[in-house]
């Protein structure tokens, strides 16, 4: 049996009295692209941050390639993080560095690569996401939102990671640019043969970039299945969410006027 690339077992996380993750179990096999969907505040970002080591779960285990990573720090954590690439929701580009150096950052700092060689690779990756070498010399502040996402994607794939995380990859983009980013994600993940874990509430994006979809609701995974099966999930929460209906079992916490 294949060892899951990412495995979460009974992961709990709370902030004060608020329970955010309430026993998450999830497995992602090598080469699979899984998208976690769910409403705002359902715990998607916290799940991602727990896997990335930015937050520590209160209990439960998280394994990468069969190795438990909860509580890992220092050199071990850096070793595991070298397997990761991450596209942040807002790009999270370093505004003190030019675009090419942003893309090459993981190569120069994480992999100790020579700057000239890293720049060549960065320009290659920028070309792969449809950006010219001239863009590489610009500052991130000079780029549009769509271009920043592309640069973020180039940075995520620059080190040719085994696992790529996408945090709301199409948020804040117009539908056409969102679709272009989706196509680029599919292309880059396929070319690298990487495992992908994305979080989004954009169903068009989820359908396009995933093999499997998991739905997170009130800190629990309430449905996991093939993307093709999501329209026939038989789960009312999933049905309501994918059709964007106000009526249904998911009730938004709105204050009555």
């Amino acid at each position, binding site marked *: 049996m294949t060892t899951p690339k990412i495995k979460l077992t009974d992961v709990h996380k709370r902030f004060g009295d608020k329970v955010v993750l309430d026993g998450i179990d999830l497995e992602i096999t090598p080469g699979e692209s899984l998208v976690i969907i769910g409403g705002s505040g359902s715990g998607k970002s916290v799940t991602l941050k727990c896997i*990335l080591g930015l937050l520590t779960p209160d209990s439960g285990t998280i394994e990468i390639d069969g190795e438990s990573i909860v509580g890992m720090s220092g050199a071990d954590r*850096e070793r595991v*993080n*070298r397997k990761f690439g991450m596209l*942040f929701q807002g790009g999270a580009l370093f505004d003190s560095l030019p675009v090419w150096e942003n893309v090459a950052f993981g190569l120069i700092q994480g992999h100790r690569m020579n700057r000239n060689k890293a720049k060549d690779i960065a320009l290659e990756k920028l070309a792969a996401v449809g950006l010219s070498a001239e863009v590489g010399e610009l500052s991130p502040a000079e780029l549009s939102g769509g271009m920043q996402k592309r640069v973020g994607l180039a940075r995520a794939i620059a080190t040719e990671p085994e696992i790529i995380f996408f945090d709301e990859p199409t948020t804040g983009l117009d539908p056409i640019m969102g679709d272009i980013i989706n196509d680029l994600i599919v292309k880059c993940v396929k070319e690298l043969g990487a495992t992908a874990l994305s979080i989004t509430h954009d169903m068009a994006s989820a359908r396009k970039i995933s093999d499997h979809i998991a739905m997170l609701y009130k800190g629990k995974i309430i449905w996991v299945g093939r993307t093709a099966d999501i329209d026939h999930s038989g789960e009312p929460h999933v049905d309501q969410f994918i059709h964007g209906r106000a009526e249904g079992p998911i009730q938004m916490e709105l204050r009555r006027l």
Partner: protein
Amino acid sequence: MNPFQPVGKAFLGFLEATGKIALFTFLSISHCARPPFYFRLLGRQMIDIGYYSLPVVGMTTLFAGMALGLQTYAGFSRFSAEGAIAKVVALGITRELGPVLAGLMVAGRIGAAMAAELGTMRVTEQIDALDTLSTNPFKYLIAPRIIAGFTMLPLLVFVGDIIGVFGGYIVSVYKLGFNPGVYISETFKVLEFVDVFSGLVKAATFGFIVTLMGCYHGYNSRGGAQGVGAATTNAVVSASILILIFNYIITELFLSA
């Protein structure tokens, strides 16, 4: 409601904040001492703190020296002790005014800028991005700033001391009619190594405090623009208060040694 409850809550909050700062300080120092070292970033910070703060510190100590010369004359002339102006200016600037004024000015210029920069990096997920790119934020962001502050402030203060003493010289010679040669010889006659050295020890301590507070408040900034603003204010206020407290402690230590 128990009337002691708010007092207890405030006290526990104080203990928690003290513990967090102590842990942050320990982590910062340990990362300053262990490789990898980012010399390019260290150089940039040294130039920013040392070179670009020079005009501010120079102006401050120049006018402080001039005012000190005038005030000393106004006070000492009542006892026909005008001859002591050179001594008072030299000791006042090197032991107290030089390091304290430079520390406070750098707290306003550098501490605020560091808190704002790191705070913005925190709320735009750039610090999280560093983690995912296998780069320890303490080594990459904090250590270069603290080393630069610790090493550059003594140099700034040394230059500021010279400019401050020169301020007293300008007032004494060109306004009060002192003999230039006598003023300079009196200055050198009264100054001992420990006078300058104690000021430089203070400067190194203040450099550490300013950068530590700037980094601590920026790194732990939360909640968007308002959080960054609060971090900036807290960095300057806490650094300024700590500078005045440690100024007294170091003065006491040197005088009792």
